[in-house]
């Protein structure tokens, strides 16, 4: 199946129309080239916009992770203090262990009060939380 795009039309038109219409064909080529340039520019713009969006998405992720870490920090500090009393060299090894997705979602959800922030967290983890 042939895709009927602008480039195909240009390669065929001079042959079909002959010498009289060569000026018109040239004009058409110029127009099409300009259109292509415009389209590629638009593509670039869209790509850069997508990059910005993904960066923003990443920012939200970072915020959520920071929130969770902030929430977990006091409890881990308490744990490490307790451990330090009994064994000073023993660091809090459980801190870096990745918790499951649901636990993260719930922890993050509970750590923030505003509905807007909670909505963000629900979007990030892809779950719905009903209290």
């Amino acid at each position: 199946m042939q895709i009927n795009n602008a480039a195909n039309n240009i390669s065929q038109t001079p042959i079909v129309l002959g010498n009289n219409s060569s000026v018109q064909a040239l004009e058409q080529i110029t127009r099409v080239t300009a259109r292509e340039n415009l389209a590629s520019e638009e593509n670039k713009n869209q790509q850069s916009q997508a990059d910005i969006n993904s960066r923003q998405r990443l920012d939200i992720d970072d915020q959520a992770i920071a929130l969770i870490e902030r929430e977990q920090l006091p409890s881990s500090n308490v744990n490490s203090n307790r451990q330090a009393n009994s064994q000073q060299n023993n660091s809090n090894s459980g801190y870096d262990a990745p918790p499951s997705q649901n636990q993260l979602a719930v922890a993050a959800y509970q750590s923030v009060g505003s509905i807007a922030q909670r909505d963000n967290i629900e979007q990030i983890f892809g779950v719905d939380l009903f209290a």
Partner: protein
Amino acid sequence: MPDSADKHLHSNTQQSSMTFRHKYQFWLMLFAALIILQLPFVSIPFKWLESYFHEISHGLAALLTGGSILQIQLFPNGAGLCTTRGGSSFVISLMGYGGAILWGCLIYSLASVNRRIAQAFSMLLVALFVFSILLWVRDLLTLFIVLVLLALVIAQLKYSSQKYLQNLLQITGLLVLVNSLMSPLYLLDGQSRGDGAALANLTYIPEIVWVVLWLSAGLFATYRLSKKSFTRSR
């Protein structure tokens, strides 16, 4: 002759007190439920029970609308959290308080029918608790709370005689109903949290409307149960 008159008077008094008890049984039980909810430690498991029915209603609504339950969490202060994926957010949000009211009515109504049905329903509750533990409870605190609730229902089944099982279940139903009547009022804290706020976000209908709707539904359910109970006693 005076002996027989005394006996007759005594039996008449007994009959009238029986009639009074039957006539106003619902209101006496409701009063008992209100008193129990004011007691510091005794009220705690019943708050957990209402919280459980609230969360399981969210979950069941998710299942019925094509979603799934990921986790149910209960907290010692009577709060709860149901994590779901998919399903209709509107129905799931609406069914938290609505479902708890329905559970309260269902427990009271089925317990009122006859002893056998009360017993069968208690067993169904036991099965629901076990099922919840196996499928949706993921943390120790929730496990402990659901185990306490399970023990409560098993104790009702095992240690109360058949005669009192009905009454105990009826009071349990009313405790759930009264709790679910009062719970939506906690949403009026101006913080825009919870099911009311979720519904307000979804429908653009203010949170207060949803709170009033749940409250009205609870009051209507209480009124219907009292009417039904009064009709049955006649």
